[in-house]
């Protein structure tokens, strides 16, 4: 058996799976988004018609799409910086030579990452219950009025953001920690001899050395946060007043509740295009920042 043939034999199972169950559906999604595939077409394929870009056009005119996009962008724009700064803060604390019991703290801070979103979202629903929840109980002690966390359209998204930060910050914390440990100690030594303060060491050594890690982490986190779905599904069912309906939530409802699969595919593709554009923009900005 030649090495060429062996290679293809080793590759075939994985490539078939990825080809049939991912690549093919992605291409089909593009085709599907150009049709009016709905409940009637599901019953009888002859009812299917080609509608070109009509699904996209209709979506762009629907207030619900824009509000879902707005909620998702809100979640990303507030959630990602908050999540990343929490991760960085935790990593800096864990990396400090003064910190004790590091393995314990690392495990404790990381634990929420491996938990099941649905299960911990259920916990948060009770912790942020208006009447009996711990959160309002604690606020009450500080003399702050009870907040209707998940029932008030102004508070529902911030509550979901808090939840997402709690659930996810440990992941990037581990990556930042590895990045911090890779910074040569003699850089800090030299800075200390020159009399640089801890704050200036942080600004002029730590942050620039973490630059590439930071870029990678922020791109991965942004794409992850754009895919908001399970949290609102469990905590608020997209409400109140659709204030937590994300783009993927809209896709799910459109596709699997109303069976407008053509229109839902258009939602999925628009989300993909937006994510792609945002990632490209971030890379471009980072490159320009690197040259300056």
């Amino acid at each position: 058996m030649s090495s060429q043939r062996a290679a293809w034999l080793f590759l075939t199972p994985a490539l078939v799976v990825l080809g049939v169950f991912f690549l093919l559906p992605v291409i089909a999604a593009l085709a599907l988004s150009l049709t009016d595939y709905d409940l009637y077409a599901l019953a009888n394929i002859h009812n299917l018609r080609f509608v070109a870009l009509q699904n996209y056009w209709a979506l762009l005119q629907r207030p619900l799409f824009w509000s879902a996009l707005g909620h998702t962008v809100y979640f990303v724009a507030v959630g990602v910086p908050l999540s990343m700064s929490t991760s960085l803060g935790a990593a800096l604390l864990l990396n400090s030579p003064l910190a004790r019991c590091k393995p314990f703290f690392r495990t404790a801070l990381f634990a929420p990452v491996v938990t099941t979103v649905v299960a911990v979202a259920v916990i948060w629903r009770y912790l942020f219950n208006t009447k009996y929840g711990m959160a309002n109980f604690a606020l009450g002690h500080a003399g702050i009025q009870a907040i209707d966390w998940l029932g008030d359209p102004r508070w529902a998204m911030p509550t979901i953001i808090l939840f997402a930060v709690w659930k996810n910050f440990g992941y990037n914390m581990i990556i930042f920690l590895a990045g911090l440990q890779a910074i040569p100690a003699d850089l800090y030594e030299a800075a200390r001899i020159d009399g640089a303060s801890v704050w200036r060491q942080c600004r002029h050594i730590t942050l620039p050395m973490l630059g590439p890690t930071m870029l990678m982490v922020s791109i991965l986190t942004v794409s992850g946060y754009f895919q908001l779905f399970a949290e609102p599904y469990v905590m608020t069912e997209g409400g109140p007043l659709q204030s937590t309906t994300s783009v993927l939530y809209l896709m799910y409802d459109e596709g699997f509740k109303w069976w407008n699969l053509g229109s839902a595919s258009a939602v999925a593709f628009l989300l993909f295009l937006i994510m792609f554009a945002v990632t490209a923009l971030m890379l471009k900005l980072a490159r320009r920042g690197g040259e300056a």
Partner: protein
Amino acid sequence: MNSRLAKALINGLLIGGAVVALFPLLWMLSVSFMQPGEASALPPPLLPVHATLANYRELFVHAGMGRYLINSFAISSVITALSLAFNLMAGYAFAKLRFAGRERLFQVLIGALVIPAQVAMLPLFLLLKYIGMVNSYAGVVVPAMASVFGIFLVRQYARGIPDELIEAARIDGASEWRIFGQIVLPLLKPIMVTLAIFSFLAAWNDFMWPLIVLTGQEHYTLPIGLASLAREHAQDSELMMAGSVITVLPVLLLFLAMQRYYLEGLLLGSVKG
């Protein structure tokens, strides 16, 4: 003096962070042992007055939680075993076997990572519907049998295997399968453990795809079962906390037991490019 203050501050913040991270999980465990209705009181109780297993009994006897638990275990184990086999073979081929178009093909796979999985879900549902796999275990398992991330992870690791080792076996007349099974696989053991934990956790925690493809209760995995219970029993916090414990505990224990491998894999997977 200043350094003692800094030490107190840093450790104090770490303790505070650990409390915030762990409190919801410990609270869940405590409330799961409370009598029905006990948690809905002011001030919110921290510990059960008379600990009871009634919530767990209710879940297993009446809510079908045992079935969901078995489904979750079965689906996650099968996905782990199959994806491990396929990803190991493909990752090894990309790292060590020479064939035309190797780098190009690998780049295409990595490029596909920018496409969010949800784009494929609608046509995938139709595809599985036409081949009769909707509402079956296979519908959840089949799309997860290989992953670009897994292939990438194995390739990164397998590149460290010395070529001479493989070449020598080839000269001795060993077949490619034998080389893979007897020389390469033993060397890939650490990454196998890492990848197995990753696949199992991802399969266990997966929500959106099982929610779409599993339409009947008898096939529900724990997250889907829990989400549907949470909509029916919104007021029963004690029952829901017991359900959350059953869902979270297996993966949390797996992580605690295999922490080192998991964190190593996380770092290996994140140094792209």
